[in-house]
């Protein structure tokens, strides 16, 4: 339990209304999209960098675990207070401080919702590309912490490719500034890249400088039905080899198509075993030519049907097919293990075949869809954990899945992060020396291991944390 004195100190910093250790607030800040639950000891809402600095300094002096929280929509447990302590909520630090149309940058606070920034900059003819599926409610602070991606990353890259600079409160309570407002900057270490994707373990970001692009004039969406997953996968490689980088290249395999078919009538040929949703963007006059070239390239690869949207409504209908996968999954089984492995693009067919084999070997349904264009596959193992022995079966299936991923030259997480959910598997991918280097950095910046302890690494100086019981 935190002492009355510490609670009072917190209230002195942010005001009594923004500090609560009631059961109500602890429960409502105990979870994220992993559905795991751990009670924090106190929930604090902060409004300024200076408040964050003072709170972190207090936590460091008193050795209290602390972690930042935005929308709490992560899939790997990044915002779970697994060691109790302070949940520092930054949702009210949600000001767009500046949109600089001369230099194409935006300066924002971490609580700004990704979709809101996108709407604001698009009004000015500008563009912020990273588009995680949760963009309507996730925060840019969370996007930076997890290095979020999304379908458009095939062409535009991920969050780290748009972060120019950060203001960070370090675990020892210093306010530091990384990077800046220019495209070029080689002064000192590239700390910006260190903090992007650090999952709140190295510090709390309180201000973000983002790079913007001019908004593409138009986009065109098409849906292509294939006879085989191999055909679809070859189509992905063929398009890229053809020197076209589409904005998005999403795929659904047979398992995903079947799953959607059970939920809603799907207007696809019965022989269809794979679907690609391809979108291109750019100047209006070049788009039709690009669409023709793509269709010509993929035609010999077992295409059953192509549908090119000519209106926004038709484009929306195509995307609706893709979006209907996730909600339909739960019809299969109540418990979902949602992995976001990534393999080199050319290895996607090998990976899909391996997943089919794993599904059969362990008798668990595995539904695959995702970002074929960058090899990022959303693998959903759907089970009922109430069945006896299922827990072990799932663990074995996941082990096989990650081993295969790494063997194919891939990574255990493309965009969701490690958090607690993937921590057991990090050693499959990173060798001892690399892991040790990372932990050396963590220890140097956070000597008391107060900052989001227990994430990414399973064994970072757990002795310095006050353990808390899961609720």
């Amino acid at each position, binding site marked *: 339990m935190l002492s009355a004195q510490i609670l009072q100190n917190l209230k002195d910093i942010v005001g009594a209304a923004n500090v*609560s250790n*009631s*059961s*109500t*607030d602890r*429960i*409502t*800040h*105990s*979870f*994220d*999209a*992993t*559905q795991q*639950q751990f009670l924090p000891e106190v929930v604090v*809402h902060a409004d300024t960098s200076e408040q964050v600095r003072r709170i972190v300094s207090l936590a460091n002096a008193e050795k209290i675990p602390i972690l930042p929280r935005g*929308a*709490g*929509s992560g899939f790997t447990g990044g915002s779970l207070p697994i060691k109790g302590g302070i949940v520092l*909520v930054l*949702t*009210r630090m*949600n000001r767009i401080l500046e949109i600089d149309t001369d230099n194409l940058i935006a300066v924002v606070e971490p*609580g700004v*919702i990704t*979709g809101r920034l996108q709407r604001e900059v698009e009004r000015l003819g500008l563009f912020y590309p990273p588009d995680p599926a*949760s963009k*309507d*409610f*996730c925060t840019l602070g969370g996007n930076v912490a997890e290095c979020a991606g999304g379908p458009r990353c095939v062409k535009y890259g991920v969050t780290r490719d748009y972060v120019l600079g950060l203001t960070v409160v370090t675990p020892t309570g210093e306010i530091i500034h990384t990077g800046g407002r220019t495209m070029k900057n080689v002064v000192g270490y590239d700390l910006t890249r260190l903090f992007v994707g650090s999952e709140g373990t190295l510090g709390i970001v309180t201000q973000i400088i983002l790079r913007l692009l001019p908004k593409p004039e138009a986009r065109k969406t098409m849906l292509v039905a294939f006879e085989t997953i191999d055909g679809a996968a070859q189509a992905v490689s063929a398009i890229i080899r053809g020197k076209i980088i589409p904005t998005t290249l999403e795929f659904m395999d047979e398992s995903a198509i079947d799953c959607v078919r059970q939920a809603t009538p799907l207007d696809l040929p019965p022989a269809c075993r794979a679907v690609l949703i391809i979108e291109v963007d750019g100047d209006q006059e070049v788009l039709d030519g690009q669409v023709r070239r793509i269709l010509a390239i993929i035609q010999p690869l077992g295409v059953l049907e192509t549908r090119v949207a000519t209106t926004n409504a038709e484009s929306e209908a195509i995307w609706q097919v893709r979006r209907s996968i*996730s*909600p339909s999954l*739960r019809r299969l089984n109540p418990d*979902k293990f949602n992995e976001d492995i990534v393999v080199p693009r050319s290895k996607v067919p090998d990976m899909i075949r391996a997943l089919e084999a794993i599904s059969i070997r362990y008798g668990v349904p595995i539904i695959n869809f995702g970002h074929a264009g960058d090899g990022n596959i959303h693998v959903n193992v759907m089970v009922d954990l109430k069945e006896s022995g299922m827990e072990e079966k799932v663990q074995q299936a996941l082990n096989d899945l990650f081993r295969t991923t790494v063997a194919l030259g891939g990574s255990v997480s493309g965009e969701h992060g490690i958090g607690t959910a993937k921590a057991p598997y990090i050693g499959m991918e990173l060798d001892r020396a690399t892991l040790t280097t990372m932990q050396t950095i963590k220890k140097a910046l956070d000597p008391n291991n107060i900052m989001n302890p227990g994430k990414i690494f399973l064994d970072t100086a757990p002795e310095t944390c006050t353990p808390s019981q899961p*609720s």
Partner: protein
Amino acid sequence: MALQKSLEEYGPQIAQCVRCGACQAHCPVYLETWREGSVARGKIALAAALLEGKIDLEERLLQELSLCLLCGSCVTKCPNQVPTDAIVAALRRRITADQGLSAIGKGVAALTSSPNLLRGLLKSAEMLSPLLFRKIPATSGLQLRFSPDSLKGRTLPPIPDRHLFARIPEFLEGEADKPVVGFFAGCAITYLYPEVGEALVRLLQTFGYPVFIPRSQGCCGMPALSSGNGPLLDKLATANLNAFADRKVSHILTACASCHGALTGHYAATGNNRFDTGIVDIHVFLKQEGIIDRLAALPKWPQRQRVTYHDPCHLRTQGITGEPRALLRALPQVEFVEMEDAGLCCGLGGTFTAAHPDLSRAIGDRKLAGLRNSNATVIATACPGCVMQLQDIINRAGLPIKAIHTLELVQQALTEQP
């Protein structure tokens, strides 16, 4: 016997919440408070904790549960369609059963269970007098929507001399080949905006429909639902069901979105919609019966007013968004323009505005930017509560815009000349 489901009976739906956070994007309250306890996901976590005995009905829990407009926005956007509005209502009934009614809840009970009291007070316009509030106890029914705090600076409609039932008979004959339609008016239309009810009746009569407006109908029960008063909700539901049992009608029409929401959704929480006849929003009826097409055939006026539309939550969340717009587009004196954020809640939320006047206004003020940019001179909507709240928002911002019910524009089209 209670007609409403208990919190326990919602257990399976509570378990359906996967904590994804999608509700955050659509909750009018969360977008002001930015607190997890305000949004559906947080409330579902509290409901689950309560069922598991991990939390008591502590003060903070009551505060968070009071912060819900029951607008249903989260439900329609939830990937698993978790019925958070119904679950919050069940939580509030649990609180009421444990701790009795809140001051506002007692006000609701006094007012909505006694139409005579409401009628009498409104007739003398005393209900809206701030002076009166000083003399009455905090538990009085007068504190309902118009407590001194929420009344301060609020624009209220002038109180009509005669309520709806004093203006029109209980049954009006129509053409022989037309079915008799029933009309559920609701408190706001009956007592505050009787001209809207009259407009609806005249419209139906113009097109030949016999109309039945039973006198024994009462409050729809939405305030009772909102304040967690299960017994009163059951009583009102039974009274309204009986009111329409006397005469066979083809439809029961509503012109108040909240009444529509209450009659179609929450009465039937146990599973069976026990009204024999379908509850139909007037706009949907006009579309179905081809009346919108007939209005569209009227000669257009040379000078038309620029009108935009606000979606009442309790129609929007039932997918009724096209019909009111189709009606406005059809009217000869209207130049319809869409506004940004037409679907944002106005912030009234029945008793919500009495319990949280500042938050209610802050939510309402989010409508202003879209309204200004639309350059409309009139904002029409399909709920008398929204009309009242919108006019208040507009007047506080000093905009030259009038908030009215869509039916008032229909009335104008049918009775005035260009």
